């Protein structure tokens, strides 16, 4: 393992890079100045696109061609969507979907 100063420098590099990605937009477009119209537009249309991207990001390690072929994920997401369309209760949909997935991967696949 590395020496302590090297560990500290490495962790600092990771923290600095993470904070750069979080603070940069706020530094470039400070609250006091009017934000360019293009950026305002992006701020409005990006969130729905990001939510879609995050769903795919969560499923990125699913293997369609081997293992369980993504069947537990498919069934559980269908459960989440169906239940949510029916009851529209956020916590309930998430809870039932997760329990469904856990039962599938532990007992069936």
């Amino acid at each position: 393992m590395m020496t302590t100063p090297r560990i500290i420098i490495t962790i600092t590099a990771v923290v600095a890079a993470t904070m750069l990605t979080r603070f940069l937009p706020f530094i470039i477009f400070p609250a006091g100045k009017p934000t360019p119209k293009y950026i305002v537009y992006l701020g409005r249309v990006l969130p729905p696109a990001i939510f879609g991207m995050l769903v795919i990001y969560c499923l990125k390690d699913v293997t369609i061609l081997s293992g369980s072929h993504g069947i537990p994920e498919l069934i559980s997401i269908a459960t989440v969507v169906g239940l949510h369309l029916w009851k529209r209760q956020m916590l309930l949909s998430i809870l039932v979907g997760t329990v469904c997935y856990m039962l599938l991967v532990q007992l069936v696949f």
Partner: protein
Amino acid sequence: MRKVRQKNTENHTMYKKAFKAAFTHTLPIMAGFCFLGLTYGIYMNVKGFSFVFPMIMSLCVFAGSAEFVAVNFLLSAFDPLQAFAVTLMINARHLFYGISMLDRYKGTGIKKFYLIFGMCDESFSINCSARLGEDIDQKQFMFFVTILNHFYWVSGATLGGIFGSLIMFNTEGIEFVMTAMFAVIFLEQFLKEKNHTASLLGLGLSLICLVAFGTGNFMIPSMLAILGILTLLRKPLEKGGDKE
């Protein structure tokens, strides 16, 4: 005197209401983060680090995937520049979060620094999508959401580092709570909006990039594709006036 006291009680109720709303909204994250944090703590523990490491990392970085990768930086040859560059790539999606929250985090005063510092996927998603009643202070709510998520994550990671190997019950699959939450947030957004272009683009372009570039390399191309197409579609999308 009485007026001051009355105002204090009012403030107190406002805080309480905002905290209650934040707590309910972050319940799935509590489940997910406690578990993922535990996994992270155990992982570092197995790799030979004391519990202090996962605790400090989760406290200072507060970005799950980057923290897992950082363990490898610590175990391989000393190369802080590479650690910096790789972390930048993994966390590039935060740039999109920042652009989306420019307006919402405006006027939050000193809390703004912490709101940006703690803007992980989950805090962003809740703060960006939650629709609150008139009686709840949005700024307080966002602050509580961020600090609660941070708290769940640090607690999980620290406990995992200390007791990780003692957990006996079968937790396989519990990480799906995060997928389920993002699916519900996406669905809520989809049901609310008139124009589905951006939602479907985000889902479709990311999927195409995942197939084309593979698990490890698809995020940056996805972001560029989303940015490019949304820029090209600016005129029709602005004309549509899709304000949710």
